[in-house]
């Protein structure tokens, strides 16, 4: 008796197309997540070289991070650059968004596009250009040079979310505040800014990640004593390829997850990024 002669099972059968789709989706997810997740077991490996699967479990590579001060100082520098750059971008981005959304002036659209160009510009061109500009200014291989370069890179993310959020806020809220006795600053501080906050937080999250992760532009601007974590890791990997890098990646992964979790709790990140 052939299989197709059997009566259909009483419960719902999953159509073949749906099963294929499920398998495809699972593959895509695996493809996206696997390289990231494979880093975690490697970090706990006891092997000296990067082999998978690891032959034993140890925390020696985490200890190695602590033993190497250059990683810690690079982490501190990257974090400081990311925070300073994001802070400056937020102030500049919000002010610019108010001008773009609430006012009309000649060249507005062109200017907004200009602010957004770092998103589409090849990073290597920007890197070379910034290095050329910063050399005569004495900003090359300095903290502030790096931070300002990162402002250029992070501003579009902040500006874009700020413009989108502000466009959604009806002008009548600000006007209502005015009729209730709030001057421009008070209306901004007590009404517009709190209403912008969720969008700004989403933009700031992007900005922090972009800055912390930045490689190409930073490479042209760093030097002895001013080294970001991604570059420090790259330098390390040129000489030694051991699970220390996996350990650092695991720490960063954990920190990122923690940050996203906190923001999600505070404002509902999914709402800000998606729909």
């Amino acid at each position, binding site marked *: 008796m052939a299989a197709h002669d059997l009566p259909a099972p009483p419960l719902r059968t999953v159509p073949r197309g749906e099963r294929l789709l499920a398998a495809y989706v699972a593959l895509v997810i695996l493809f996206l997540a696997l390289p990231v997740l494979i880093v975690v077991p490697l970090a706990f490996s006891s092997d000296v070289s990067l082999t998978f699967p690891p032959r034993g479990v140890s925390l020696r590579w985490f200890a190695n991070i602590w033993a190497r001060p250059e990683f810690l100082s690079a982490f501190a520098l990257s974090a400081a650059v990311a925070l300073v750059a994001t802070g400056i971008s937020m102030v500049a981005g919000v002010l610019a968004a108010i001008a773009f959304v609430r006012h009309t002036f000649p060249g507005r659209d062109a200017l907004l596009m200009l602010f957004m160009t770092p998103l589409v510009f090849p990073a290597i061109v920007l890197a070379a250009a910034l290095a050329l500009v910063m050399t005569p200014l004495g900003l090359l291989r300095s903290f502030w040079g790096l931070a300002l370069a990162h402002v250029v890179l992070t501003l579009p993310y902040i500006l874009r979310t700020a413009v989108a959020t502000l466009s959604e806020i009806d002008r009548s809220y600000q006007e*209502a505040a005015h009729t209730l006795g709030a001057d421009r600053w008070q209306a901004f501080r007590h009404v517009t800014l709190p209403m912008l906050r969720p969008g700004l937080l989403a933009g700031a999250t992007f900005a922090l990640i972009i800055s912390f992760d930045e490689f190409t532009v930073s490479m042209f601007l760093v030097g002895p004593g001013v080294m970001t974590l991604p570059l420090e890791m790259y330098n390390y990997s040129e000489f030694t390829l051991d699970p220390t890098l996996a350990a650092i990646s695991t720490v960063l992964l954990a920190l990122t997850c923690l940050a996203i979790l906190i923001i999600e709790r505070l404002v509902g990140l999914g709402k800000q990024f998606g729909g």
Partner: protein
Amino acid sequence: MMISSSDAVGVDLRGVRKWYGAVPAVRDVSLAIRPGEIVSFLGPSGCGKTTTLRMIAGLEHPDAGEIRIGGGLVNDVAPWKRNIGMVFQNYALFPHMSVAENVAFGLAMRREGRAEIDAKVAAAMAQVRLTPLADRRPSQLSGGQRQRVALARAIVTRPSVLLLDEPLAALDRKLREQMQVEIRQLQREVGITTVFVTHDQEEALTLSDRVVVMEAGRVVQTGTPAEVYERPRSRFVSDFIGFTNAVAGRIEAVEGGTATVTMRSGQTIRVPAEAGLAAAQAVDLVVRPEKVELNPPAEARPGRALVSGTLRHSVYTGAVTYHHVDIGAGETLIAMASNGDGHGEAPVLGSPVTLGFRPENMLVFASAV
């Protein structure tokens, strides 16, 4: 404690104009709003009523003319220094604040003490019956509740003038009627000079001491609700306020304050002549359906203008019935009959009928053409 204002002030507009680029939004509006009065700006969209209100609020700057609040020129005074209260069409309740925080906002901006703010907020919330909702967010309220929060927020600071921009447009009919009564009561209690904008003639008649009818950036008539309804000064006003009959006619003669008018059907009526009307002029004859009686009894006919015709159809709407009467030459007059007075026997459709009305209730306007 009751929020009340004993020192109501007037609002004066003199030759106020506003352009948006090359487009005039408000052209030459002059108006004196008396202290404690409730005035409505009534007109179709684009007539300049909202722009005028926003200029009183200081949210728009007039291009010409003077705006005075309590006698003082405020043209260049920022809105936050005008001591006004305003209710926006969308209410503009701050979504990140609770109901109580919304109401307290104006007091906080005035740097009043915590205890004073709490007492005033509690009083205002009680006045609009919102006390149990103090800790809710605006998003958790119904339309009518939001409306009351907006109202409480606008009056708690004891403003000199209360401005309302289409305050009831977002509410359904039943709630709108209820809120009309509430706003009126509140305005009486507080005694505050109030200006509101509406495109709903019924709302304007119900709520106002005076109605300011606007058309294309100009004030076309100002008067009590009864004045603008009973004695509209133009065809536009009569059409915009209430339901009207209009038929075409031609003036035969004007003598001793009475005009003899021939309707297109050939029937002639005699009506009081308005100034500026002359023989041979083409006119529109306008009369409210409730002023027209179908088949008036013989004893009521002396002194009435009478028009004969054929009953075409009767529209029963519950309290009243509208009788559509063909008076010849394709023109129709509508008579409204109350269904509450017992004589319910309507004439048979197609039968000849007589329409009667007081001559002074027939308004004569020069034809637009």
